[in-house]
């Protein structure tokens, strides 16, 4: 790798392939930058803002800024992590994220990120949103909009991978919420399936496949043993043929 295609994160050199974002290059190099709405298999969204870093003195989302030679990126600093904690607290109070009563606990990226960033409380006043009742109309999957963090991963997965466009984000501001592609508004009336990519990408407990919630006991779930920092997800290798 030529010296030209490298930049630094907190002083550490990171090589990149042209076309990669700062976040992609960092994760590929094993340098963790907290993120929620980014997923290696999808185009960047840039909405959760957890990956906000300082690039050559300017704030920006690591997932949407192209990696450039010689960039000086600051990420793991007390100030930026404090900001990230606050963004996490915002996401926690905006929805109904009560870990002890949620079957996603242990597999939840929001929770894992909160542990990783040492967020010890919700701090702000809870919104207790009412984005409608739990939609259990689908035989295999349930949808709890009040646990949604509006990352639009399901929107992207259903549209770009499953080819179904089951989900959209509707409304504005704090009233934003998921809607599904059915005149009835019910997930059960869409072509959604538990095997869809959109069913597995939800980082929180908004889209939950039924009857498997406790197949792995609490204590032996994805983030119970190791921090999310040490379990960086990489894009699936390209299929041969």
């Amino acid at each position, binding site marked *: 790798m030529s010296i030209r295609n490298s930049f630094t994160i907190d002083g550490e050199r990171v090589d990149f392939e042209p076309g990669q974002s700062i976040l992609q290059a960092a994760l590929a190099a094993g340098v963790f930058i907290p993120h929620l709405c980014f997923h290696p298999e999808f185009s*960047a969204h*840039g*909405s*959760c*803002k*957890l990956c*906000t870093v300082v690039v050559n003195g300017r*704030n920006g*989302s690591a997932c*949407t800024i*192209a990696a450039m030679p010689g960039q000086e990126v600051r990420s793991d600093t007390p100030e930026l992590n404090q*900001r990230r904690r*606050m*963004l996490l607290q*915002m*996401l926690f*109070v*905006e929805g109904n994220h009560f870990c002890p009563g949620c079957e996603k606990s242990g597999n939840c990226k929001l929770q894992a990120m909160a542990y990783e960033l040492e967020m010890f409380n919700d701090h*702000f*006043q809870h*919104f207790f949103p009412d984005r409608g009742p739990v939609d259990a109309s689908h035989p295999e999957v349930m949808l709890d909009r009040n646990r949604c963090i*509006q990352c639009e991963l399901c929107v992207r997965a259903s549209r770009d991978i499953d080819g179904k*466009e*089951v*989900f*959209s*984000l*509707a*409304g*504005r*501001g*704090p*009233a*934003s919420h998921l*809607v*599904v*592609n*059915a*005149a009835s508004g019910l997930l059960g009336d869409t072509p959604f399936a538990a095997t869809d990519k959109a069913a597995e990408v939800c980082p929180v407990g908004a889209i939950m496949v039924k009857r498997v919630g406790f197949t792995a006991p609490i204590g032996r779930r994805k983030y119970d043993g190791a921090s999310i920092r040490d379990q960086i997800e990489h894009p699936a290798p390209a299929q041969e043929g």
Partner: protein
Amino acid sequence: MQGLDDTLGQILTAHRKDPRRLVQILRAAQSEAGWISPEIAAFLADELCMPISRIHAVVQFYAFLYDRPVGRYRVLFSDNIIDRMLGSVALRQHMQRRMKVGRGAVSADGLVSIDTTSCTGMGDQGPALMINNRQIVRLTTRRIDEICDLMRDGAPLEDWPSHYFTISDRIRRAESLLGTSYVPGKALAQAIELGPQGVLDDLRRSNLRGRGGAGFTTAMKWELCAEAEAETRYIICNADEGEPGTFKDRVLLNSFAERIFEGMAIGGYAIGARHGVIYLRGEYDYLRAPLEMKLAAMRQRGLLGTNVLGVPGFDFDIEIQMGAGAYICGEETALIESLEGKPGRPRIRPPFPVTRGYNDMPSVVNNVETLCKVVEVMRIGGRAYALLGTKQSTGSKLISVSGDVARPGVYEYPFGVRIQTVLDDCGATDVAAVQISGAGGMTLAPHEFGRRIAFEDVPTSGAFMVFNRSRDMFEVARNFMHFFAHESCGFCTPCRVGCALSASIMDKIAAGLGAQYELNELTRLGAVMRTSSHCGLGQTAGNAVADTLQKFRPDYERRLMAGDFAPAFDLDAALERARQVTSREDAQAHLEGVA
């Protein structure tokens, strides 16, 4: 339903069944049916071959699209702080009492619904309201009473006294833009004489900068767009004048429209664009028909259409697309999303619109005023133009003056004018503060009135709201914070949640439950919103709170309670539901009773 299907079919045909025209289609459908019913949504989804969820996403994003029935008369009171200072709240409550309907509700007989809306651009002649997309200004109790009678009688709006709907220009001071005569086509002829590159060169010499607020050099924007490889390019006029307290574009659209069109045509000539689009805010719907007429007249004169001014191959025409009540659509990439029939959420930049904009083609988005200035540059030449104003901020600027002044209206000054000069000219006395450039701009205190309006000192998109010493700057900031909470598109965490949290903290302070703790919280939230938000809305949403906290702290402190902290959560009130269920009202069922 058959009749409605036919009507919808006609609307769809008129819009070529193009899903990218969804916002326009929904507006048209709603003006026929009153609201977007589930049947209409399903019909449109079917005809446009799109998921119904996409229809819902759009309808629920725009304030002027409704997915539930509204009154046959939809009354929306402009809720900017200036309207409030002119008594809009009392007038609204008066109307609500007379029509027996709560805020945000529909009367039992379906006749009327009453609500508030963000600044409607009538700050110089408020208080103002909108009724079924028409604007009524200079409201008084008497006029509200008359309106109530007309609504009760079911009188169609066309039969209402026409003077209700008369909007004045109120030009108070004119310079090179408002004060010069205009000969249609002269600037465009000059442009053709210069040739496309010559236009860009002259524009660069003028150092004209965008009037929307950010101040990007217009020549550079046009050059970047001209250089981008593409078959098609667009000139888009941003007429989504939503910044609270701004109304100068309204005046330009009303009385100087030909210059806007000609500025767009010059742009089309310079960058090789054949299509122009004006994105007109929904609040200015009443301007649409006159604008269409003026466009037709321009076409007749050969200033628009094919072979414009007889130049073979120079084809350029303009169409108007309407907004539907979303402040964020003034942000250029959100505007483009809206033009493409989507919710107005700002895009990730880069790519910038000059390389990939409307329909993924290179697009120039210019403010209404900027396009008028292009005509001026062509008329007097770039060098002469650059002599006006200051070195970094050439030419003149339109200022929308409202609030505690004797003569509200539009004032045109060369850049570099001092705040105090504007205050003197508009008859403002005993001034405590001036809010520059809208809700996200700067709040200036008297010791700053010597500063100058210019990109290098006090930049502005044009709003100039004046507050005298009787005003409460805390309430001003609280109004702005609620504005942002209402208008945040919801895309990014810091703005979506931060604005809502900040607004509720301001409410808590207003309720007398705030302490020093809350002031610190506002500062902390403001910092995260400023540094982490996706676009300018979130980045500037905390400005007014930060500025007033610093400069008008007593307005906050006199509301604070003595203690360190009080919860906003009212435990006793939260027990009300339990009391109702158990039919208890005794002392033991109340917290103080337990103590």
